[in-house]
């Protein structure tokens, strides 16, 4: 199934060249979880990262559906 991964700001360096506006489309097996999808990228997978599914806070073991968007960014105070 096809899903999207979006990386924001400094994490964009971990994206392949074909990514556009920080988004890359991936073909992943059915049952792939949020964690498995984001693990494909060289970003920290600890509490220094924020990872959301379709903009929502979810468990990292949540299985993905066709068309889902996983987004990750560095946890740092802003605003």
């Amino acid at each position, binding site marked *: 199934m096809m899903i999207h991964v*979006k990386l*924001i*700001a*400094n994490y*964009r*360096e971990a994206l392949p060249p074909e990514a556009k*506006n*920080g988004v890359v489309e991936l073909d992943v097996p059915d049952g792939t979880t949020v964690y498995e999808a984001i693990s494909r990228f060289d970003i920290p997978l600890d*509490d220094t*990262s*924020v990872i*959301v599914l*379709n*903009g*929502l*806070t979810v468990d990292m073991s949540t299985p993905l559906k066709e068309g889902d968007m996983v*987004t990750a*960014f*560095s*946890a*740092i*105070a*802003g*605003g």
Partner: protein
Amino acid sequence: MYGWHLRILRVNLTSHKVTTEDVDPKIARDYLGGRGWAIHYLYKEMDPMADPLSPDNILIFATGPLTATPAPTGNRYMVVTKSPLTGALAHSNSGGEFPTWMKRTGFDMFIFEGKSSEPVYVFVNEDQIEVRSAAHVWGKDVHETTDILKAETSADARVACIGQAGENLALMAAIMNDKHRAAARSGVGAVMGSKNLKAVVAMGKKNPKLYDSAKMISLSVDTSKNVGADVKKGSNMRIYGTSYVPQVTNTLGILPTRNFLQGTFEGVNNIDGDALKNQYLIRHTPCYRCPLSCGRLTEVPDGPYKGKGEGPEYETISSLGTGCGVSNLAALVKANYLCNEYGMDTITTGMTIAAAMEMYEKGYISEEIIGMPLKFGDHDAMIEMIRKMAYREGFGNDLAQGSYRLAEKYGHPEIAVTTRKQEFPGYDPRGSQGMGLLYATSNKGASHMEGDVAYEEVFGVPVKENPLTTEGKPELVKHFEDSFALMDSSGLCVFVAIRYAFNKDRMILPQRLAEMMNFSTGAGYTPEEALKAAERVYNLERMFLLKAGSTEDTLPHRMLHEPLPDGPAKGKVVELDKMLPEFYKLRGWDEKGVPTKEKLEELGLPL
């Protein structure tokens, strides 16, 4: 004494009489410094019902015990006064260089009373204090004023001043320092203008003595190293400033778009941090002694929006940009420059124009009244409105009153997205419930800087909270409000001080911040005492607010009754009723939000 000078400069602008006075060490300790000291004096000395633009209002510039010390970002000051925009308390924070230079005069705090009959500026070079004519800079913008006053005083001086917006009493007028830094919110620049005080120019060599210089330097170096490690890893704050945030809030569906009619913006890629970095960024411009360096010098090299200056930061992008439906980056950058030059808060400026755009599109205000079409996304009209607001020219006079009064005047109060008449910053609380409680209860009206729980709900600092739920949010908001009162009183910037306010496991005691305060002052705060002092400050601000007559903690119609139509938070409104009673209980306030006698006694506050 250490850390604090324990000296205040008082300038009566009516008589031009200058006096100095000492601060009681017990008051100094109980109220921390900065924002805390300022509310103590404001509460003691002025009638909270006074007209904010009258000579009866008091304008306070206050540094903290960590200002002008080696503490990283120990370079902030607060402007505290009664706000003409909200009728409530104003406390606006700024960095740059002026705060350190101000404290090096040998005074912790400047108090301005009364009103000068003619435009003046106040020059403070340690004990050389002069009230000088400002006739030659009246009418000039922030940049020109700064250059002229430095040229006629000293290249070693630093300037805080108002532009045309403050002179003309526009209610979103800011006090700008070092040209580009702003004590922006709540119309503090209009208070300065109402006193005919164009500028304050400060210089000196009186660094505060430190109680334990070696430990202070060691802790500061350690903190700077931690920040440096973040930077090495590619900290967003160093690379982008806060301009990376639109992508984050857009992802969560809480990016204010078209006056909060939407929570996502289709043009976000045109105006985000990468676009700014790739097109207009020249270099980073840190505040004095800041290892983080979120400021940035930018330039639009040619075309109709040609200019050079600092910004935009996130809050400007989410107000003058997405708030107005504007996706032309060059125009947005230019709008930011103009606000800095006229001396205007970009949040209230942008969101007031956004409200006017919505009212125009709905037919509530005609093209004839405005003088031109004012559709969402019309960046040229937005730029023209900024100029009109600064000069209160034509329809600009309506805009200069802020969105609450604008919407009320034209018969549609439901359009204004404000609390206590102050415009919302860049987090739609329908998708960030804790922010909703914060905006509703904030003593200064809607502001993220009153206790920015977006750190947890949005940015995952120190831990990620689900922004769509209400559970635990009252406790979170209370802790952030008290922590921000502590940080604002200390003289540090919250971007770094937040490291001291929490540990990773969200241990809620400000252990390191208390240590740093002690190395500076020798006051011997325990973390509990420091947090308790911050709670004292917060409650006294509440008492000022109540006496000023602003009593209702609520949210505007759109936030309570119009569900978000798009994005991850689609269908949500702010569930304020689920949070407010618990919040009052945790605060020790009654069901109307009034501190109880027991709470006031516990904090040692006047009944």
